[in-house]
């Protein structure tokens, strides 16, 4: 893994990163010099409708890649597919995906995570009747005490348990959940669950973390500090792939952005480039995404029609996929 250490040293530096990224092939599905995730010919159909149809995608190691796209574009489904929670319709017919050099075509969700690719869920999955700290500790990998036979002998796992707990405490503090440590996860608010979900995924020290709308429902001030944390992880060498609709977030931390629409990959590139792409603006961002909505002029019929037109564009994009 000397490769990676070299890369991580470089990648902590924004300039180096920008340089690296500028060398990428910016066409959808373009190749990357050191891709950690590689996806080929994945399609998923529900009934007659194609939710995902990705010809080729590579994710560069050590960078933060954002996956954006209209609602229903197939982002979550794509996550499900490559993390083993769903099976591609094209399985066995050319579908292929690999993580860190390891083929995942037939791998179960748990082995995917063990391989180092850990995900979060858009609709959170907090383990309600367990405390927050227990939720966290479940996240840690390779626990000796999770082996049925060793579990009966406390000595064999006590030390590791303490280490894990210390780490969990630290993460909880950062995610502003420390006070809730001993509360049941079921009693958390919507946003707190999102936070817990993310923190839990980080407990496993993944090589790559896949976040599905991590910041939806998270308080903006906290969002900001969490982004700092994620950047820090990236600087330590973690790869991040995340789905997000908050463009400030995308712009703030992503090194690379991939755009999905109608199940297909339609554009790739650095955040600024992608977001100034008229097609993306039309179908996804809308003309108003950074104007002041408080202006009543926006409520005029023309302005409203315009927004509806944009929505229509997004809708048409989706429609084509069916």
């Amino acid at each position, binding site marked *: 893994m000397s490769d990676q250490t070299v890369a991580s040293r470089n990648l902590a530096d924004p300039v180096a990163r920008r340089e690296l990224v500028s060398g990428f092939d910016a066409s959808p599905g373009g190749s990357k010099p050191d891709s950690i995730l590689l996806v080929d010919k994945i399609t998923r159909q529900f009934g007659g409708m194609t939710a995902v149809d990705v010809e080729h995608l590579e994710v560069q190691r050590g960078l933060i890649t954002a996956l954006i796209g209209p609602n229903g574009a197939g982002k979550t489904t794509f996550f499900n597919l490559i993390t083993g929670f769903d099976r591609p319709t094209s399985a066995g017919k050319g579908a292929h995906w690999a993580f860190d050099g390891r083929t995942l075509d037939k791998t179960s969700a748990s082995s995917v995570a063990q391989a180092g690719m850990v995900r979060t*869920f858009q609709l959170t999955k907090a383990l309600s009747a367990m405390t927050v700290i227990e939720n966290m500790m479940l996240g840690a990998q390779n626990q000796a005490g999770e082996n049925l036979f060793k579990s009966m002998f406390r000595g064999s796992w006590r030390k590791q348990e303490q280490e894990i707990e210390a780490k969990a405490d630290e993460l909880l503090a950062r995610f502003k959940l420390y006070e809730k440590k001993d509360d049941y996860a079921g009693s958390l608010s919507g946003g707190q669950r999102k936070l817990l979900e993310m923190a839990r995924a980080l407990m496993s020290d993944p090589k790559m973390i896949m976040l599905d709308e991590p910041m939806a429902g998270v308080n903006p001030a906290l969002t900001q500090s969490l982004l700092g944390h994620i950047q820090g992880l990236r600087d330590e060498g973690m790869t991040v792939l995340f789905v997000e609709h908050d463009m400030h977030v995308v712009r703030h931390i992503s090194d690379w952005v991939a755009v999905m629409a109608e199940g297909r990959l339609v554009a790739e590139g650095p955040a600024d480039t992608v977001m100034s792409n008229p097609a993306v603006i039309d179908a996804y961002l809308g003309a108003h995404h950074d104007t002041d909505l408080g202006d009543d002029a926006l409520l005029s019929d023309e302005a409203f029609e315009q927004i509806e037109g944009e929505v229509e564009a997004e809708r048409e994009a989706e429609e084509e996929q069916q």
Partner: protein
Amino acid sequence: MSSGAANAVDTLCLAEADKTACIAGTLRTEADVVPDVTLTITGPGGFSEEVTTGETGKWNVQVTEPGAYVVKIDEDSLPDDVVTDHPEVTINVGRLGATQAATLDVRTGSYSAESSKFDELVQSTVNGLRLGLLLALASVGLSLIYGTTGLSNFAHAEQVTLGGILGYYLINRGGLSLIVGGILVVVICAFTGWFQDRVLWQPLRRRGLGLTQLMIVTIGLSLALQYCYQYFVGARTVRVVQDNPEVSTFGPITITNQSIVAMAISVVVLAAVGYALLRTRIGRATRAVSDNPALAAASGIDTDKVIRLVWTVAMALAGLSGLLYALVTNGIKWDTGLQILLLLFAAVTLGGLGTAFGALLGALIIGLVVEISPVLGMPGDFKYATALLILILLLLVRPQGLLGKPQRVG
């Protein structure tokens, strides 16, 4: 073990203890007794005697020695239309002082021991449909309750029993006519559903009891009800009507008129329930409540009312099912429901949990399997087991049941 002694009626041979033994029998074909046939009985010690069968086909001889005796028909003395494949039989007189029977297989010329497997299959298919429809009535209610509240109601079986038992009280004991009594049974059962929800399930929902806890409550209720029935009705089988049912025959199918009516009623009622579920506002509301009660309330649905309605309807259906079941199977007992409970659950699951139509489909399949599998050679003990095995196998292929939909992850 040695032989016993029998002084069969009309047998004038009386064995004297330790001195003589009797050999006796009756000569008969599948249609009637055969008089005036000569039989020769030979045995140890040169014993040989001829007897002629009497008016009633009976014959007997006295012997004085134990041992093997051969009884042989004089085929010439047989009437013209009577034949036999085995004109003689060897029997063993084990001990004196007893009667030993001897049977000779004689048949009329037109006799055939064959029976049509196909006819049997047709007959059991009809029986299976009948059982399936009755199970469906009960399991649709079970499925509705499960679908609306998530509760596996183990006391549902007792509600089925209740239908039959009320029928016994009102119709057999109370002398009401079948129709009036039947309607009354359904009404009372419906009321028990309403009442149960009012005094038990609704308050428990309010207290936020978990589903497993509620399930245990239904187990308790089921226990209490079973013993209530034992207490009031006793542990014996009782019948709703005492008369033997009239029978109709259609080709190979023999079926009681009661069964025909019961099947017709089931079909009509099930169709009505199905229509209500799919096409009416209330039907949709039941599903909404099952999905997300809080949101249902937030949509202006009075969840309590909907659930109460479901309980009322489900219990009425169960009662009706029990009444028809008691009529069709000729009796009801305190544990009749219990005996079919697992079949009900299997039906509900087979079709897909919580889908009422699935329950209908599942019930029909279960009914057919139970009735047909013995014809196809399954040991009788295993007919329920076969139904359950099919359920397990199906779930392996289609984990969500026949009509269930898979869930989305993420």
